[in-house]
């Protein structure tokens, strides 16, 4: 039953077979390189699109219960490391886009939330979200997905706590520190209908935004899948290269892609013999840190805090990568 759920529902193996049969019927040899690439591309685009629409809908519905105003209130009730954990958890369910990062940052800070809690939230928010959990389950299985999420939360909690301990409150941009906005607006009450409409709108806008990334991601995945020699992948990202994790992280940081776009690449690399931890480091680096979000954040915090934030994320991601590589045998 578990295997059926994994293979047919989450991974949609039936879809792959269906597409394979259709392509063969059209006279394309799916065991050839080109045929295989075409099959991988069509299967992955359809699979990820279905998952994306379904997931975003469910997630947006859940997220509509956690507007930032409410998350801020909840976090305010906790203290110490408990507040960091709650911050990291709420980061996964609070709707958030990079252009909102400054207002959220300001809102949290002006409400008197500790800097570390805000950062736990900011780290976990892009790295771990509900969508990535289900998508990872679909491709890498339940164990890996849960491990990814837990480790992401751990990085967020530790990172936030460290920033707290470093007392960098003076590193917040002056206009935020000097403002004494005490306006506390209530989030509006939503009906079930409102939430459904919100979820539908989110699916529509996310799909439009992310679809090009999926096409590119799957395209790269298809190329890796059928054209890149296994040897190369193993040499650069496999057990033969002790610096694979560092390399994957450094390459991933400046890249900006949605997790939906990175997963097909990760999937293809894994199949070619790249190590699991190396792949996960790459995915975390791409989704957590990206130039656009760093540029936004730069307006709200000063360089020293910015550097600390980046360093903590990078080091955390690298540790996770090596950890996964060391204990890979448990997961695969």
């Amino acid at each position, binding site marked *: 039953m578990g295997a059926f759920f994994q293979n047919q529902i989450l991974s949609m193996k039936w879809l792959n077979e269906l597409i394979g049969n259709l392509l063969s019927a059209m006279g394309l040899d799916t065991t050839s390189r080109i045929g295989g690439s075409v099959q991988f591309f069509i299967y992955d685009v359809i699979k990820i699109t279905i998952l994306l629409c379904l997931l975003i809908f469910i997630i947006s519905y859940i997220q509509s219960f956690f*507007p*930032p*105003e409410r998350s*801020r209130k909840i976090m305010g009730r906790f203290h110490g490391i408990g507040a960091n954990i709650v911050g990291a958890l709420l980061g996964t369910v609070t*709707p958030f*886009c*990079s*252009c*909102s990062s*400054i*207002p*959220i940052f*300001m*809102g949290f800070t*002006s409400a008197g939330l500790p800097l570390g809690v805000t950062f736990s939230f900011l780290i976990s928010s892009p790295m771990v979200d509900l969508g990535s959990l289900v998508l990872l389950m679909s491709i890498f299985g339940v164990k890996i997905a849960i491990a990814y999420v837990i480790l992401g939360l751990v990085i967020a909690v530790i990172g936030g706590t460290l920033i707290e301990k470093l007392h960098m409150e003076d590193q917040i941009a002056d*206009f*935020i520190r000097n*403002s004494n*906005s005490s*306006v*506390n*607006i209530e989030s509006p009450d939503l009906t079930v209908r409102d939430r459904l409409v*919100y979820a539908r*709108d989110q699916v529509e*806008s996310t799909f439009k935004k992310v679809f090009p990334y999926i096409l590119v991601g799957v395209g790269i995945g298809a190329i890796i899948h059928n054209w890149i020699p296994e040897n190369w992948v193993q040499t650069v990202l496999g057990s033969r290269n002790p610096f694979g994790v560092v390399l994957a992280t450094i390459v991933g940081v400046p890249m900006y892609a949605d997790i939906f776009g990175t997963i097909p690449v990760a999937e293809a690399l894994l199949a070619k013999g790249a190590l699991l931890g190396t792949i996960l480091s790459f995915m975390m680096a791409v989704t957590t840190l990206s130039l656009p979000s760093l540029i*936004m954040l730069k*307006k*709200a915090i000063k360089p020293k805090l910015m550097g600390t934030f980046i360093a903590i994320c990078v080091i955390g991601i690298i540790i996770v990568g090596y950890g996964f590589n060391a204990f890979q045998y448990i997961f695969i």
Partner: protein
Amino acid sequence: MNIKVLGGGCAKCEALLAATKEAVAEKGIEAEIEYITDMAKIMEYGIMSTPALIIDNKVVSMGRVLKAKDVAKIL
């Protein structure tokens, strides 16, 4: 009537601004539409999720890209 669209200048905020303009034009209302991207100003309203829509200094929507017909309803 005074309408303000608040946002950091991202695509979503631009979309709300366009929808608001469309709704105002459609309803033929005399309204002054302002587009505010200054974060310090946005903060004064206590907004935490952009884009937000403010009509006569009252926050009517935040964190959502409303369609023109939704804006028209609020107007």
